[in-house]
Protein backbone atom coordinates (compact mmCIF):
# COMPACT_ATOMS: atom_id res chain seq x y z
CA UNK A 1 0.00 0.00 0.00
CA UNK A 2 1.33 3.42 -0.94
CA UNK A 3 2.22 6.08 1.57
CA UNK A 4 1.88 9.83 1.88
CA UNK A 5 4.90 12.02 2.68
CA UNK A 6 3.96 12.24 6.35
CA UNK A 7 3.48 8.46 6.59
CA UNK A 8 6.92 7.86 5.12
CA UNK A 9 8.47 10.27 7.58
CA UNK A 10 6.62 8.72 10.52
CA UNK A 11 7.57 5.16 9.51
CA UNK A 12 11.23 6.09 9.21
CA UNK A 13 11.24 7.76 12.65
CA UNK A 14 9.13 5.37 14.73
CA UNK A 15 10.43 4.74 18.24
CA UNK A 16 7.39 3.30 19.99
CA UNK A 17 3.69 2.70 19.64
CA UNK A 18 2.49 2.88 23.24
CA UNK A 19 -1.23 2.79 22.51
CA UNK A 20 -3.68 2.78 19.62
CA UNK A 21 -2.45 4.91 16.74
CA UNK A 22 -0.12 6.96 18.94
CA UNK A 23 3.36 6.99 17.44
CA UNK A 24 6.36 8.16 19.40
CA UNK A 25 8.79 9.46 16.78
CA UNK A 26 12.43 10.48 16.88
CA UNK A 27 13.06 14.18 16.27
CA UNK A 28 15.73 15.59 13.99
CA UNK A 29 15.43 19.07 15.42
CA UNK A 30 13.77 21.02 18.21
CA UNK A 31 13.36 24.76 17.68
CA UNK A 32 12.90 27.20 20.55
CA UNK A 33 11.94 30.84 21.09
CA UNK A 34 11.68 33.02 24.15
CA UNK A 35 7.92 33.04 24.65
CA UNK A 36 7.13 29.35 25.07
CA UNK A 37 10.48 27.80 26.01
CA UNK A 38 11.15 29.46 29.40
CA UNK A 39 8.12 27.71 30.97
CA UNK A 40 9.47 24.39 29.72
CA UNK A 41 12.95 25.21 31.00
CA UNK A 42 11.65 26.20 34.43
CA UNK A 43 9.62 23.03 34.67
CA UNK A 44 12.57 20.85 33.63
CA UNK A 45 14.73 22.58 36.24
CA UNK A 46 12.04 22.05 38.89
CA UNK A 47 11.97 18.33 38.02
CA UNK A 48 15.77 18.11 38.31
CA UNK A 49 15.99 17.39 34.58
CA UNK A 50 17.91 20.38 33.27
CA UNK A 51 19.36 18.43 30.33
CA UNK A 52 19.00 18.38 26.54
CA UNK A 53 18.97 15.31 24.28
CA UNK A 54 21.47 16.74 21.81
CA UNK A 55 22.70 20.35 21.93
CA UNK A 56 23.40 20.30 18.18
CA UNK A 57 19.81 19.46 17.32
CA UNK A 58 18.34 22.29 19.36
CA UNK A 59 18.16 25.67 17.63
CA UNK A 60 17.24 28.76 19.61
CA UNK A 61 16.23 32.31 18.76
CA UNK A 62 14.93 35.33 20.60
CA UNK A 63 12.46 36.76 18.11
CA UNK A 64 9.04 37.65 19.44
CA UNK A 65 9.91 40.75 21.40
CA UNK A 66 13.43 41.86 20.67
CA UNK A 67 15.11 44.02 21.85
CA UNK A 68 13.20 43.38 25.10
CA UNK A 69 10.47 45.95 25.75
CA UNK A 70 10.06 45.52 29.52
CA UNK A 71 11.31 43.53 32.51
CA UNK A 72 9.13 40.54 31.77
CA UNK A 73 10.32 40.08 28.18
CA UNK A 74 13.89 40.78 29.30
CA UNK A 75 13.56 37.92 31.79
CA UNK A 76 12.26 35.56 29.11
CA UNK A 77 15.34 36.33 27.02
CA UNK A 78 17.62 35.90 30.03
CA UNK A 79 16.23 32.48 30.94
CA UNK A 80 16.64 31.30 27.35
CA UNK A 81 20.15 32.71 26.98
CA UNK A 82 21.43 31.17 30.21
CA UNK A 83 19.82 27.82 29.47
CA UNK A 84 21.36 27.66 25.99
CA UNK A 85 24.74 28.51 27.45
CA UNK A 86 24.76 25.96 30.24
CA UNK A 87 23.54 23.24 27.87
CA UNK A 88 26.11 24.02 25.16
CA UNK A 89 23.54 24.94 22.54
CA UNK A 90 25.64 26.68 19.93
CA UNK A 91 22.99 27.71 17.43
CA UNK A 92 21.58 30.52 19.51
CA UNK A 93 20.51 33.71 17.76
CA UNK A 94 20.47 36.79 19.91
CA UNK A 95 20.14 40.49 19.12
CA UNK A 96 21.97 41.50 15.97
CA UNK A 97 21.78 38.00 14.54
CA UNK A 98 18.17 37.19 15.35
CA UNK A 99 15.11 37.05 13.15
CA UNK A 100 11.65 35.52 13.05
CA UNK A 101 12.03 31.82 13.87
CA UNK A 102 10.29 30.31 10.84
CA UNK A 103 12.30 32.55 8.50
CA UNK A 104 15.73 32.30 10.10
CA UNK A 105 15.89 28.54 10.74
CA UNK A 106 15.29 27.56 7.07
CA UNK A 107 17.69 30.29 5.99
CA UNK A 108 20.41 28.74 8.17
CA UNK A 109 19.84 25.36 6.53
CA UNK A 110 18.40 23.67 9.63
CA UNK A 111 15.59 21.88 7.79
CA UNK A 112 15.89 18.95 5.38
CA UNK A 113 13.42 16.80 3.49
CA UNK A 114 12.27 13.92 5.65
CA UNK A 115 13.05 15.72 8.90
CA UNK A 116 10.83 15.64 11.94
CA UNK A 117 10.86 18.77 14.04
CA UNK A 118 8.79 20.48 16.70
CA UNK A 119 8.62 23.88 18.32
CA UNK A 120 6.37 25.52 20.90
CA UNK A 121 4.82 27.64 18.18
CA UNK A 122 1.78 27.06 16.03
CA UNK A 123 3.37 28.20 12.77
CA UNK A 124 6.07 25.53 12.92
CA UNK A 125 4.15 23.99 10.02
CA UNK A 126 6.07 26.47 7.80
CA UNK A 127 9.05 24.08 7.64
CA UNK A 128 6.92 21.46 5.91
CA UNK A 129 7.73 23.43 2.75
CA UNK A 130 10.97 21.42 2.67
CA UNK A 131 9.21 18.06 2.73
CA UNK A 132 9.61 17.78 6.49
CA UNK A 133 7.09 16.94 9.19
CA UNK A 134 7.08 20.04 11.38
CA UNK A 135 4.51 20.64 14.09
CA UNK A 136 3.73 23.18 16.75
CA UNK A 137 3.40 21.61 20.20
CA UNK A 138 2.51 22.52 23.77
CA UNK A 139 4.91 22.91 26.66
CA UNK A 140 4.92 19.32 27.91
CA UNK A 141 5.71 18.00 24.43
CA UNK A 142 8.38 20.65 24.05
CA UNK A 143 9.93 19.55 27.37
CA UNK A 144 10.02 15.94 26.26
CA UNK A 145 11.45 16.99 22.89
CA UNK A 146 14.23 18.96 24.57
CA UNK A 147 14.96 16.20 27.06
CA UNK A 148 14.63 13.07 24.96
CA UNK A 149 14.36 14.05 21.29
CA UNK A 150 11.02 12.31 20.83
CA UNK A 151 7.41 13.37 20.46
CA UNK A 152 4.10 11.51 20.39
CA UNK A 153 1.56 12.08 17.61
CA UNK A 154 -1.46 10.29 16.27
CA UNK A 155 -0.50 8.54 13.03
CA UNK A 156 -1.11 11.25 10.44
CA UNK A 157 -4.09 11.48 8.13
CA UNK A 158 -3.35 13.57 5.06
CA UNK A 159 -5.50 15.84 2.92
CA UNK A 160 -4.06 16.36 -0.54
CA UNK A 161 -4.70 19.71 -2.15
CA UNK A 162 -3.90 19.78 -5.80
CA UNK A 163 -3.32 23.40 -6.81
CA UNK A 164 -3.65 23.78 -10.54
CA UNK A 165 -4.31 26.41 -13.18
CA UNK A 166 -2.58 29.52 -14.37
CA UNK A 167 -1.95 32.03 -11.61
CA UNK A 168 -2.73 35.61 -12.68
CA UNK A 169 -0.49 38.61 -12.33
CA UNK A 170 -0.77 40.26 -8.92
CA UNK A 171 -1.81 37.00 -7.27
CA UNK A 172 0.63 35.36 -4.87
CA UNK A 173 1.08 32.36 -2.59
CA UNK A 174 -0.65 34.35 0.16
CA UNK A 175 -3.78 34.75 -1.98
CA UNK A 176 -3.70 31.04 -2.78
CA UNK A 177 -3.49 29.97 0.86
CA UNK A 178 -6.14 32.50 1.94
CA UNK A 179 -8.48 31.09 -0.70
CA UNK A 180 -7.77 27.55 0.53
CA UNK A 181 -8.43 28.49 4.17
CA UNK A 182 -11.63 30.24 3.09
CA UNK A 183 -12.67 27.03 1.39
CA UNK A 184 -11.66 24.56 4.13
CA UNK A 185 -12.67 26.68 7.12
CA UNK A 186 -10.63 27.12 10.28
CA UNK A 187 -11.29 23.52 11.34
CA UNK A 188 -11.26 22.03 7.86
CA UNK A 189 -8.11 20.01 8.42
CA UNK A 190 -7.86 19.79 12.19
CA UNK A 191 -5.22 17.27 13.31
CA UNK A 192 -4.45 16.36 9.73
CA UNK A 193 -1.52 17.05 7.46
CA UNK A 194 -2.06 18.99 4.25
CA UNK A 195 0.03 17.91 1.27
CA UNK A 196 0.21 20.82 -1.17
CA UNK A 197 0.82 19.56 -4.65
CA UNK A 198 0.15 20.34 -8.31
CA UNK A 199 1.65 22.47 -11.07
CA UNK A 200 1.29 25.75 -9.15
CA UNK A 201 3.23 24.40 -6.17
CA UNK A 202 5.87 22.86 -8.39
CA UNK A 203 6.48 26.27 -9.95
CA UNK A 204 6.70 28.06 -6.59
CA UNK A 205 9.94 29.23 -4.99
CA UNK A 206 10.82 27.94 -1.51
CA UNK A 207 9.74 31.31 -0.10
CA UNK A 208 6.30 30.96 -1.66
CA UNK A 209 5.99 27.37 -0.44
CA UNK A 210 6.83 28.55 3.06
CA UNK A 211 4.04 31.14 2.84
CA UNK A 212 1.69 28.35 1.79
CA UNK A 213 2.70 25.92 4.54
CA UNK A 214 2.90 28.69 7.15
CA UNK A 215 -0.87 29.14 7.14
CA UNK A 216 -1.83 25.44 7.02
CA UNK A 217 -2.43 25.69 10.75
CA UNK A 218 -5.07 28.37 10.12
CA UNK A 219 -7.18 25.60 8.62
CA UNK A 220 -6.37 23.49 11.68
CA UNK A 221 -3.63 21.37 10.08
CA UNK A 222 -0.79 19.94 12.15
CA UNK A 223 1.57 20.49 9.25
CA UNK A 224 1.57 21.60 5.61
CA UNK A 225 3.95 19.65 3.39
CA UNK A 226 5.35 20.12 -0.11
CA UNK A 227 7.25 17.29 -1.75
CA UNK A 228 10.97 17.95 -2.17
CA UNK A 229 12.21 18.72 -5.69
CA UNK A 230 15.05 20.56 -7.47
CA UNK A 231 13.83 23.89 -6.02
CA UNK A 232 14.34 22.41 -2.55
CA UNK A 233 17.80 21.16 -3.49
CA UNK A 234 18.81 24.54 -4.95
CA UNK A 235 17.71 26.35 -1.79
CA UNK A 236 19.61 23.96 0.47
CA UNK A 237 22.63 23.45 -1.79
CA UNK A 238 25.07 25.67 0.11
CA UNK A 239 24.39 23.59 3.24
CA UNK A 240 24.48 20.14 1.68
CA UNK A 241 27.11 20.42 -1.03
CA UNK A 242 29.62 18.48 1.06
CA UNK A 243 27.20 15.61 1.56
CA UNK A 244 26.31 15.01 -2.09
CA UNK A 245 28.47 14.83 -5.21
CA UNK A 246 25.86 16.54 -7.37
CA UNK A 247 22.49 18.21 -7.06
CA UNK A 248 20.97 15.25 -8.83
CA UNK A 249 22.36 12.94 -6.16
CA UNK A 250 20.83 15.12 -3.47
CA UNK A 251 17.51 15.07 -5.27
CA UNK A 252 17.64 11.32 -5.58
CA UNK A 253 18.08 11.03 -1.86
CA UNK A 254 15.31 13.57 -1.13
CA UNK A 255 12.67 12.07 -3.39
CA UNK A 256 12.48 9.15 -0.97
CA UNK A 257 10.09 11.50 0.74
CA UNK A 258 7.75 11.91 -2.21
CA UNK A 259 4.25 10.50 -1.87
CA UNK A 260 3.53 7.17 -3.58
CA UNK A 261 1.10 7.20 -6.50
CA UNK A 262 -1.22 4.86 -4.65
CA UNK A 263 -0.98 6.69 -1.32
CA UNK A 264 -4.23 6.81 0.59
CA UNK A 265 -5.54 10.25 1.44
CA UNK A 266 -8.21 11.27 3.88
CA UNK A 267 -9.45 13.65 1.20
CA UNK A 268 -8.27 14.98 -2.16
CA UNK A 269 -9.20 18.52 -3.09
CA UNK A 270 -8.79 20.12 -6.50
CA UNK A 271 -8.07 23.80 -6.22
CA UNK A 272 -7.91 25.65 -9.52
CA UNK A 273 -6.44 29.13 -9.15
CA UNK A 274 -6.87 30.30 -12.74
CA UNK A 275 -9.58 32.75 -11.83
CA UNK A 276 -8.27 33.58 -8.38
CA UNK A 277 -8.09 37.27 -7.54
CA UNK A 278 -6.11 38.84 -4.69
CA UNK A 279 -7.71 37.87 -1.37
CA UNK A 280 -8.16 39.60 1.98
CA UNK A 281 -9.75 38.67 5.29
CA UNK A 282 -12.73 40.65 6.52
CA UNK A 283 -13.49 39.26 10.00
CA UNK A 284 -11.76 37.89 13.06
CA UNK A 285 -11.07 34.43 11.68
CA UNK A 286 -8.60 33.53 8.92
CA UNK A 287 -11.37 31.80 6.94
CA UNK A 288 -13.30 35.06 6.70
CA UNK A 289 -11.89 35.61 3.23
CA UNK A 290 -13.11 37.74 0.30
CA UNK A 291 -11.64 39.01 -2.93
CA UNK A 292 -9.91 42.37 -2.39
CA UNK A 293 -12.38 43.81 -4.91
CA UNK A 294 -15.21 43.37 -2.38
CA UNK A 295 -13.29 45.13 0.36
CA UNK A 296 -11.94 48.12 -1.54
CA UNK A 297 -12.61 51.45 0.06
CA UNK A 298 -12.04 50.25 3.65
CA UNK A 299 -9.81 52.81 5.30
CA UNK A 300 -6.77 51.60 7.24
CA UNK A 301 -4.66 53.24 9.94
CA UNK A 302 -1.60 51.04 9.65
CA UNK A 303 0.08 48.81 7.11
CA UNK A 304 2.36 46.08 8.41
CA UNK A 305 4.69 44.15 6.13
CA UNK A 306 6.68 41.39 7.79
CA UNK A 307 6.32 38.15 9.84
CA UNK A 308 7.03 34.49 9.20
CA UNK A 309 4.33 34.52 6.53
CA UNK A 310 5.52 37.38 4.33
CA UNK A 311 8.68 39.01 5.65
CA UNK A 312 11.13 37.34 3.26
CA UNK A 313 13.14 38.99 0.50
CA UNK A 314 10.69 37.99 -2.26
CA UNK A 315 7.85 39.58 -0.31
CA UNK A 316 9.81 42.78 0.14
CA UNK A 317 10.69 42.88 -3.56
CA UNK A 318 7.04 42.51 -4.55
CA UNK A 319 5.96 45.27 -2.17
CA UNK A 320 8.80 47.56 -3.27
CA UNK A 321 7.75 47.07 -6.89
CA UNK A 322 4.29 48.32 -6.05
CA UNK A 323 5.61 51.24 -3.99
CA UNK A 324 7.98 52.15 -6.81
CA UNK A 325 8.62 55.80 -5.97
CA UNK A 326 5.14 56.51 -4.54
CA UNK A 327 4.45 57.99 -1.13
CA UNK A 328 2.15 56.27 1.34
CA UNK A 329 -1.05 58.01 2.39
CA UNK A 330 -0.75 60.84 4.96
CA UNK A 331 -3.00 59.06 7.40
CA UNK A 332 -1.29 55.65 7.19
CA UNK A 333 1.51 54.42 9.43
CA UNK A 334 3.63 52.07 7.35
CA UNK A 335 5.82 49.52 9.14
CA UNK A 336 8.24 47.17 7.45
CA UNK A 337 9.87 44.44 9.49
CA UNK A 338 12.29 42.34 7.42
CA UNK A 339 12.12 38.81 8.82
CA UNK A 340 15.84 38.20 9.30
CA UNK A 341 19.14 40.12 9.28
CA UNK A 342 19.96 38.46 5.94
CA UNK A 343 16.69 39.69 4.44
CA UNK A 344 17.38 43.12 5.94
CA UNK A 345 20.85 43.21 4.39
CA UNK A 346 19.68 42.00 1.01
CA UNK A 347 16.91 44.60 1.02
CA UNK A 348 19.48 47.22 1.90
CA UNK A 349 21.78 46.22 -0.92
CA UNK A 350 18.98 46.03 -3.47
CA UNK A 351 17.76 49.50 -2.54
CA UNK A 352 14.47 48.09 -1.28
CA UNK A 353 14.80 49.65 2.17
CA UNK A 354 15.30 53.02 0.51
CA UNK A 355 12.15 52.54 -1.57
CA UNK A 356 10.22 51.78 1.61
CA UNK A 357 11.74 54.67 3.54
CA UNK A 358 11.25 57.13 0.71
CA UNK A 359 7.62 56.05 0.60
CA UNK A 360 7.30 56.90 4.29
CA UNK A 361 7.62 53.48 5.92
CA UNK A 362 9.34 52.92 9.24
CA UNK A 363 11.79 50.01 8.98
CA UNK A 364 12.16 48.02 12.20
CA UNK A 365 14.70 45.40 13.17
CA UNK A 366 13.81 41.77 12.43
CA UNK A 367 11.24 40.65 15.04
CA UNK A 368 7.69 39.31 15.33
CA UNK A 369 6.69 42.61 16.90
CA UNK A 370 3.25 43.78 15.83
CA UNK A 371 2.25 40.38 14.41
CA UNK A 372 1.29 39.22 17.87
CA UNK A 373 0.53 42.67 19.24
CA UNK A 374 3.38 42.77 21.72
CA UNK A 375 5.56 45.56 20.35
CA UNK A 376 6.54 47.63 17.30
CA UNK A 377 3.10 48.64 16.07
CA UNK A 378 0.35 47.63 18.51
CA UNK A 379 -3.05 48.99 17.44
CA UNK A 380 -5.27 51.27 19.51
CA UNK A 381 -8.91 50.35 20.01
CA UNK A 382 -10.92 50.85 16.85
CA UNK A 383 -7.88 50.95 14.58
CA UNK A 384 -7.48 48.93 11.41
CA UNK A 385 -4.31 47.34 10.06
CA UNK A 386 -3.63 45.93 6.61
CA UNK A 387 -1.15 43.19 7.36
CA UNK A 388 0.89 40.49 5.66
CA UNK A 389 0.80 38.34 8.83
CA UNK A 390 -1.23 35.18 9.39
CA UNK A 391 -3.69 35.80 12.22
CA UNK A 392 -6.58 38.20 12.44
CA UNK A 393 -8.03 36.99 15.75
CA UNK A 394 -9.84 39.62 17.77
CA UNK A 395 -7.19 41.57 19.66
CA UNK A 396 -4.23 39.89 17.95
CA UNK A 397 -2.45 43.17 17.11
CA UNK A 398 -3.83 45.05 20.09
CA UNK A 399 -7.10 45.11 22.03
CA UNK A 400 -10.00 46.35 19.94
CA UNK A 401 -7.94 46.45 16.75
CA UNK A 402 -8.91 44.88 13.42
CA UNK A 403 -6.41 43.10 11.18
CA UNK A 404 -6.99 42.40 7.50
CA UNK A 405 -4.66 39.72 6.17
CA UNK A 406 -3.37 40.12 2.63
CA UNK A 407 -0.36 39.71 0.35
CA UNK A 408 2.61 42.11 0.38
CA UNK A 409 1.46 43.51 -2.98
CA UNK A 410 -2.01 44.30 -1.68
CA UNK A 411 -0.53 45.73 1.52
CA UNK A 412 1.78 48.04 -0.42
CA UNK A 413 -1.02 49.26 -2.68
CA UNK A 414 -3.17 49.78 0.41
CA UNK A 415 -0.41 51.82 2.07
CA UNK A 416 -0.32 54.19 -0.91
CA UNK A 417 -4.04 54.87 -1.09
CA UNK A 418 -4.89 54.40 2.59
CA UNK A 419 -7.76 52.15 1.57
CA UNK A 420 -7.77 48.42 0.89
CA UNK A 421 -6.60 48.32 -2.71
CA UNK A 422 -5.96 45.71 -5.36
CA UNK A 423 -2.35 46.16 -6.46
CA UNK A 424 -3.25 44.93 -9.92
CA UNK A 425 -5.89 47.53 -10.57
CA UNK A 426 -4.08 50.20 -8.70
CA UNK A 427 -3.45 53.38 -10.63
CA UNK A 428 -2.68 56.45 -8.61
CA UNK A 429 -4.57 58.98 -10.72
CA UNK A 430 -7.78 57.00 -10.80
CA UNK A 431 -7.68 56.41 -7.06
CA UNK A 432 -7.23 60.08 -6.24
CA UNK A 433 -10.50 60.80 -7.95
CA UNK A 434 -12.22 57.65 -6.82
CA UNK A 435 -11.16 57.13 -3.21
CA UNK A 436 -13.96 57.30 -0.73
Amino acid sequence: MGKTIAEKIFDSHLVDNPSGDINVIRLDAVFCHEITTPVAINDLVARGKDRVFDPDKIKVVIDHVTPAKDSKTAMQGKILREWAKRNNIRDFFDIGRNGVCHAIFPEKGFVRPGYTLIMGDSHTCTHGAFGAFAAGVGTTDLEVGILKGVCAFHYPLTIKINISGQISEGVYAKDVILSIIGRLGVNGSTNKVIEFTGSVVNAMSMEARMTLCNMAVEAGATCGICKPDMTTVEYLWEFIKDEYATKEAALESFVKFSPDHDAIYDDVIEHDVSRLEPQVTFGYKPDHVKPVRDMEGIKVDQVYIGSCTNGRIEDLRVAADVLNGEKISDFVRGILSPATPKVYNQALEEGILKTFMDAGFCVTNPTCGACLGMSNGVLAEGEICASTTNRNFNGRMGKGGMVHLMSPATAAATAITGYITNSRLYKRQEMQGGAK
Partner: protein
Amino acid sequence: MTNFSGKVLFLDRSDINTDEIIPAKYLTEISKKALKPYLLEDIKLEGFAPHKDIKGKSIIVTRANFGCGSSREHAPWALEANGINLVIAESFARIFKQNMFNCGMPAVELPVETIDHLFLNFAGKETLIETDFEKNLFIIKADKLKEEIPFSISDFDRALILAGGWVEYADLKY
Protein backbone atom coordinates in the same frame (compact mmCIF):
# COMPACT_ATOMS: atom_id res chain seq x y z
CA MET B 1 2.44 9.13 43.25
CA THR B 2 -0.28 11.58 44.22
CA ASN B 3 -3.19 9.71 45.77
CA PHE B 4 -5.88 11.67 43.92
CA SER B 5 -8.13 11.84 46.96
CA GLY B 6 -9.64 14.79 48.73
CA LYS B 7 -12.46 17.31 48.87
CA VAL B 8 -14.66 17.87 45.86
CA LEU B 9 -15.49 21.08 44.04
CA PHE B 10 -18.74 20.74 42.07
CA LEU B 11 -19.01 22.89 38.94
CA ASP B 12 -22.56 22.50 37.69
CA ARG B 13 -22.23 23.52 34.03
CA SER B 14 -21.25 22.09 30.67
CA ASP B 15 -18.72 23.60 28.23
CA ILE B 16 -16.47 25.28 30.78
CA ASN B 17 -13.71 26.54 28.51
CA THR B 18 -10.01 27.11 29.02
CA ASP B 19 -10.50 30.89 29.07
CA GLU B 20 -12.72 30.44 32.09
CA ILE B 21 -10.25 28.03 33.69
CA ILE B 22 -7.35 30.44 33.16
CA PRO B 23 -7.79 33.74 31.26
CA ALA B 24 -5.46 34.36 28.30
CA LYS B 25 -3.91 37.41 29.92
CA TYR B 26 -1.97 35.18 32.32
CA LEU B 27 -0.25 33.17 29.60
CA THR B 28 2.83 35.38 29.86
CA GLU B 29 3.66 33.94 33.27
CA ILE B 30 6.87 31.92 33.20
CA SER B 31 6.07 29.48 35.99
CA LYS B 32 3.14 27.20 36.73
CA LYS B 33 2.92 28.41 40.34
CA ALA B 34 2.28 31.99 39.24
CA LEU B 35 -1.10 30.91 37.84
CA LYS B 36 -2.44 29.91 41.25
CA PRO B 37 -4.51 33.02 42.12
CA TYR B 38 -6.29 33.18 38.76
CA LEU B 39 -7.93 29.76 38.48
CA LEU B 40 -11.56 29.99 37.33
CA GLU B 41 -11.38 33.77 37.75
CA ASP B 42 -13.71 34.51 34.83
CA ILE B 43 -16.07 31.55 35.04
CA LYS B 44 -19.75 32.21 34.42
CA LEU B 45 -21.38 30.14 37.15
CA GLU B 46 -23.95 31.44 39.58
CA GLY B 47 -23.10 31.32 43.26
CA PHE B 48 -19.47 30.39 42.65
CA ALA B 49 -16.81 32.47 44.39
CA PRO B 50 -13.39 31.32 43.14
CA HIS B 51 -11.20 32.26 46.06
CA LYS B 52 -13.54 30.94 48.71
CA ASP B 53 -14.77 27.82 46.91
CA ILE B 54 -11.49 26.50 45.47
CA LYS B 55 -9.57 26.53 48.72
CA GLY B 56 -8.89 23.05 50.13
CA LYS B 57 -10.40 21.21 47.16
CA SER B 58 -8.47 18.54 45.24
CA ILE B 59 -11.05 17.17 42.83
CA ILE B 60 -13.50 18.74 40.38
CA VAL B 61 -16.76 17.07 39.40
CA THR B 62 -18.43 18.71 36.44
CA ARG B 63 -20.64 18.17 33.38
CA ALA B 64 -19.91 17.82 29.65
CA ASN B 65 -17.10 19.08 27.39
CA PHE B 66 -14.91 20.42 30.19
CA GLY B 67 -11.77 22.23 28.98
CA CYS B 68 -13.01 23.21 25.52
CA GLY B 69 -11.53 26.23 23.72
CA SER B 70 -7.82 26.77 23.25
CA SER B 71 -5.23 24.05 23.68
CA ARG B 72 -3.37 25.90 26.43
CA GLU B 73 -1.67 23.65 28.94
CA HIS B 74 -1.97 26.45 31.44
CA ALA B 75 -5.44 25.09 32.20
CA PRO B 76 -4.26 21.86 33.88
CA TRP B 77 -1.33 23.76 35.39
CA ALA B 78 -3.66 26.27 37.03
CA LEU B 79 -5.56 23.33 38.51
CA GLU B 80 -2.34 21.67 39.67
CA ALA B 81 -1.06 24.90 41.22
CA ASN B 82 -4.19 24.89 43.37
CA GLY B 83 -3.80 21.29 44.44
CA ILE B 84 -6.58 20.06 42.13
CA ASN B 85 -5.28 16.98 40.33
CA LEU B 86 -8.32 14.99 39.32
CA VAL B 87 -11.28 16.05 37.19
CA ILE B 88 -14.34 13.87 36.79
CA ALA B 89 -16.78 14.83 34.05
CA GLU B 90 -19.36 13.55 31.64
CA SER B 91 -16.87 14.33 28.83
CA PHE B 92 -13.80 16.42 28.06
CA ALA B 93 -12.43 18.44 25.19
CA ARG B 94 -9.84 16.14 23.59
CA ILE B 95 -6.73 18.29 24.00
CA PHE B 96 -7.55 19.26 27.57
CA LYS B 97 -7.92 15.60 28.47
CA GLN B 98 -4.58 14.76 26.86
CA ASN B 99 -2.94 17.70 28.62
CA MET B 100 -4.24 16.44 31.98
CA PHE B 101 -2.73 12.97 31.52
CA ASN B 102 0.47 14.51 30.15
CA CYS B 103 0.70 16.39 33.46
CA GLY B 104 0.16 13.12 35.31
CA MET B 105 -3.37 14.01 36.37
CA PRO B 106 -6.43 11.88 35.57
CA ALA B 107 -9.38 13.26 33.60
CA VAL B 108 -12.00 10.58 34.11
CA GLU B 109 -15.27 10.27 32.25
CA LEU B 110 -18.37 8.86 33.91
CA PRO B 111 -21.79 8.25 32.34
CA VAL B 112 -24.21 11.15 32.37
CA GLU B 113 -26.58 9.33 34.79
CA THR B 114 -23.73 8.85 37.27
CA ILE B 115 -22.77 12.52 37.05
CA ASP B 116 -26.44 13.51 37.52
CA HIS B 117 -26.59 11.23 40.51
CA LEU B 118 -23.47 12.79 42.05
CA PHE B 119 -24.81 16.31 41.61
CA LEU B 120 -28.19 15.32 43.04
CA ASN B 121 -26.86 13.55 46.12
CA PHE B 122 -23.52 15.15 46.88
CA ALA B 123 -23.35 18.70 45.51
CA GLY B 124 -23.67 21.31 48.24
CA LYS B 125 -22.34 18.90 50.86
CA GLU B 126 -18.81 18.50 52.12
CA THR B 127 -17.87 15.62 49.82
CA LEU B 128 -14.73 13.51 49.82
CA ILE B 129 -13.52 11.21 47.08
CA GLU B 130 -10.91 8.51 47.55
CA THR B 131 -9.44 7.06 44.39
CA ASP B 132 -8.40 3.44 44.23
CA PHE B 133 -6.30 2.97 41.10
CA GLU B 134 -5.85 -0.72 41.67
CA LYS B 135 -9.54 -1.48 41.68
CA ASN B 136 -10.51 1.45 39.43
CA LEU B 137 -12.92 2.74 42.04
CA PHE B 138 -13.96 6.09 43.41
CA ILE B 139 -15.17 5.95 46.99
CA ILE B 140 -17.42 8.92 47.55
CA LYS B 141 -18.39 10.11 51.01
CA ALA B 142 -20.53 12.89 52.43
CA ASP B 143 -22.34 12.99 55.80
CA LYS B 144 -23.42 9.39 56.26
CA LEU B 145 -23.49 8.63 52.54
CA LYS B 146 -20.86 6.36 51.08
CA GLU B 147 -20.80 5.01 47.55
CA GLU B 148 -18.42 3.17 45.31
CA ILE B 149 -18.32 4.11 41.66
CA PRO B 150 -16.21 2.17 39.16
CA PHE B 151 -14.36 3.91 36.35
CA SER B 152 -12.07 2.95 33.50
CA ILE B 153 -9.07 4.56 31.82
CA SER B 154 -6.84 3.32 29.01
CA ASP B 155 -3.61 1.46 29.77
CA PHE B 156 -1.51 4.24 28.30
CA ASP B 157 -3.30 6.90 30.36
CA ARG B 158 -2.77 4.75 33.43
CA ALA B 159 0.93 4.42 32.62
CA LEU B 160 1.18 8.21 32.35
CA ILE B 161 -0.49 8.62 35.75
CA LEU B 162 1.75 6.02 37.37
CA ALA B 163 4.86 7.66 35.93
CA GLY B 164 3.74 11.14 37.00
CA GLY B 165 3.12 12.50 33.51
CA TRP B 166 4.57 12.43 30.00
CA VAL B 167 7.90 14.04 30.91
CA GLU B 168 8.62 11.44 33.58
CA TYR B 169 7.26 8.61 31.43
CA ALA B 170 9.37 9.58 28.41
CA ASP B 171 12.48 10.15 30.50
CA LEU B 172 12.18 6.66 31.94
CA LYS B 173 11.25 4.90 28.76
CA TYR B 174 13.13 6.50 25.86
